[in-house]
């Protein structure tokens, strides 16, 4: 039996995959049942057409502009793009293996990817999964079959965070590979050359894709709360560094904040969303926050 099959049949791997799936379902359905319930069920929501108001219709969807212009009552109808593909890219480089608590960035990334996959499948859309380091190491082609979710979670559960990262290279590669417009969701810490990363984002946008970045940040990476004498052992073959962290904390925070800011500005400039996801933030909060923001943005574009 080949190792790949064996790993697929590994009870622990199966358990992890199931756990991811269960968790994703739990989070997403929890979101769906929550206060942010919206008719805009799904990921990609666009206005399709008007129809005449019939008694019993939800008056929230009344097009007030049309009413004002024509004095006629019309209801907006929205069309979910039923054939969009969500390309979920998960950074599996060694830097993602860091975690100040039991949950590493990669664990969080896997959970986010699983949730998003579940959500997309709920909308009967397609999901493609890509795990990358300095290139795409594992790729699951698009599928709108819900049974694909298990395969997605299996791939995610099996993956390990190791090796160096090259986000820009992956983005360019993806831009060249994917012909049909879709949504590219990049789940990474983006510890790479920001300019190069943003250039990759630009390439994707040029191709017509919608890009969503989920920037994973460990709380310690953001706060740098260390004290005493620390020998920081670099991941991804970066040399160790000994220092007194308390004395350089301010400088580090400035550096990190500048990085986040540049990244954010770059994404915004390209019309993309960048969500900063601290790994200590509950997943449902993350989804709730982002999707609610997306819906508000979409509603604004309809008016």
């Amino acid at each position: 039996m080949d190792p790949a099959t064996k790993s697929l049949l590994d009870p622990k791997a199966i358990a992890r995959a199931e756990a991811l799936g269960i968790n994703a379902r739990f989070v997403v359905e929890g979101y769906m049942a929550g206060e942010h319930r919206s008719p805009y069920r799904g990921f990609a929501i666009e206005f399709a057409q008007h129809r005449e108001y019939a008694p019993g219709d939800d008056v929230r969807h009344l097009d007030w502009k049309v009413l004002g212009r024509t004095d006629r009552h019309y209801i907006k109808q929205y069309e979910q793009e039923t054939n969009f593909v969500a390309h979920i890219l998960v950074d599996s480089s060694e830097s993602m293996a860091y975690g100040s608590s039991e949950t590493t960035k990669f664990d969080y990334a896997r959970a986010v990817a699983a949730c998003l996959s579940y959500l997309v499948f709920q909308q009967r859309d397609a999901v493609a999964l890509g795990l990358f380091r300095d290139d795409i190491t594992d790729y699951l082609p698009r599928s709108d079959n819900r049974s694909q979710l298990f395969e997605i979670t299996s791939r995610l559960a099996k993956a390990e965070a190791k090796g160096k990262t090259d986000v820009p290279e992956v983005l360019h590669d993806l831009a060249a590979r994917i012909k049909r417009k879709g949504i590219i969701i990049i789940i990474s810490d983006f510890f790479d050359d920001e300019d190069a990363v943003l250039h990759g984002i630009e390439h994707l946008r040029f191709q017509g894709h919608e890009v969503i970045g989920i920037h994973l940040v460990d709380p310690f990476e953001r706060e740098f709360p260390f004290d005493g004498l620390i020998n920081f052992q670099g991941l991804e073959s970066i040399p160790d560094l000994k220092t007194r962290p308390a004395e350089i904390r301010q400088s580090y925070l400035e550096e990190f904040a500048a990085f986040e800011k540049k990244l954010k500005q770059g994404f915004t400039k390209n019309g993309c969303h960048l969500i900063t996801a601290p790994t200590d933030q509950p997943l449902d909060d993350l989804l709730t926050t982002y999707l609610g923001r997306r819906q508000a943005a979409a509603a604004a574009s309809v008016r």
Partner: protein
Amino acid sequence: MAFLNPLLLYGLAAVSVPVIIHLLNRRRFRKIPWAAMRFLKTSVQRNQRRMQVEDWILLAVRCLLIALIALAFARPALENLAAAWLQPRHTLAVVIDDSSSMAAAADPANPSGPTRFDIALESARNLIAALPPGSNTVLLFGSDRLSPGSIPEPTSDPSRIAAALDRSTVTSGSSDLFPLVSRAAELLDARRSSHEELVVITDTTSHAWRQFDRIGSALPPETRVIFTGAEIAANLAVTDLQLRTPFPTANTPLRFDVTVKNTGTTAAQDIPVSLDLDNTATGQPATITALAPGESQTLTLYSITPTPGFHAATANLPADAMPGDDSRSLAFETAERTDLLLVDGTPSTRARDSSTFYLKHAIASPTVSTTTVTTSDLPDTDLSAFSAIVLANVPELGRTATDRIASFVKTGGGLVVFAGDRISTDFYNRELHTNRGLLPVTFGDPVTANQSIQTTTLDHPLVTPWASSSQSDLADVNLTTVIPLTAHNAQTVLRTNNSDILAASAPVGRGRVIAVGTSADTTWTDFPVHPSFVPFFRHLVGAVAGSRPDLYNLTAGTPFRFPVPASASTEVAVYPLGIDRSVGTSSRTVTIDGTPFIDHAATHNAGVFRASSPPVNLTFAVHPDPAEAETRTLSQAQLTELAARAEITRIKTAVSTLGTGTRTTGAELWLPLLVAVIALALIELFLAQRFSRSK
């Protein structure tokens, strides 16, 4: 620069401690995997140089801090630094020996030059002048006790110290350094100054160091001993002067025994010894032909007092290097005549059978008369007319007689008690000894056996004339019956060959009592018919009759205390004999147990003095301790042991050899170092906090 605690400079090695801690800390880094190295690296690179510089600064400050602490403990001093505020505060205790031997010339070859005491004073002045400003001085003058004029508490008043030094004089005291040294050491121990030192200034005689071990133990760590004056090779001293005439009477020859000792290390020849009476030369001087080193010789001189009353005899030697022992005075009292009362316990029609027969004949002389009574006559007898009472085989006394005799003795009268076959030992033991405290012995049971007098232990002053073989041998005396005596605070005068006490003597009140454990007649002994009996009995009675010489003759430093009648004036004047009384001291009598006393404590100087509390006028003499005349010095072993505990300086003739400031260390720098340490500690604290802030 000098260091007062140079050994503590090894503490500088502690400077390596911060370096070692710094190096050890390099191994104490906690390992943490880290992903965001990019940002960390940039931050470190941006601040690395500054952090290194800060690290070096802190290390340097900490090393300097420890170095300064080690230096401060080593107590560096700069001799040429005159800053007064840097000078340490000293407490100096100076003990100056003012005993009789300090009056000797510092240089025996220059008898008229400075004395040892002069050298001592000058040394003290130089030492005190060299002290840093604000220092305190204790000044203790004394021989075996503190002399007036001392400054026993620390003072920084230079005028007070100078006045005390100027006023001080040598005394006739006998030196014993231990009381003064221990007091000075206690004073220094109680002080909390930066530097305490004891200086002992004395001469080279070993007598002052007779408590050598105790003195050594009492010396504080910083001690200096200054020996003044050269050693004296030749010295003669009058060590004793005694009046040997039993009943000193005016206008009768008085025999004086003068004892001269050669305390030097060279032999002396042809030594003239003269005798003054009441400060007037009298009689012909006698000559001691030769006196070897350490040898004593007693010679007899005679004089006559023209009038009864108090007189003083002074034996003189030619002046030598130690003038304090070249003369010695003796105060004594002569009477017009001496009357003795003999109480006969066995009166008889046959004179020879009475107990007092032999006594009466032995004592009778133109200047001594006797009155014989029986016990029944005693109550009516005026005892004040007599100098002494002899009880011869008296069975017991009635209450009135006992009272009167007790009062007689306590007010200065003498009592001699002879045993016999009729005495009631119970009465003498119970009443006279226990109840009255009159008899200093108790009588045992008679021992009837042939005994003789032990002549190997004739060391009591009463019987020393019989100690030499030139006198009649008391060993011939036969004792058929003896009542052994038990002495109670009494001196043994005679013993039997069985070592029983035969005769004992003790002062009682102002009088004196002698008890003899055999009869005064021939019933128990043949002593009354022995050739020695007459001089012996005259000596015996003479010792109790008249004034007690020990009341009027004192060793220097002993207070003169003499009871006076209640009717005497309370005003007391004491002045040197031959000097106007206005020169002397005035005081008042003190009352002790209801009795007024002349109490004169200023007996520091030898000489003859008059004490007057009208109608009482008497003479007393103060003499130096003969031991002070010894010229022996400390042994080499003692000097070596002393040198281990103290710095020794010898000043033989001139003070200029004592360098001022030989012990000054210059300005000590521990205080500015301490200030620097505190400042550095604050700087280190500030820098450490500042450098550890986030950048």
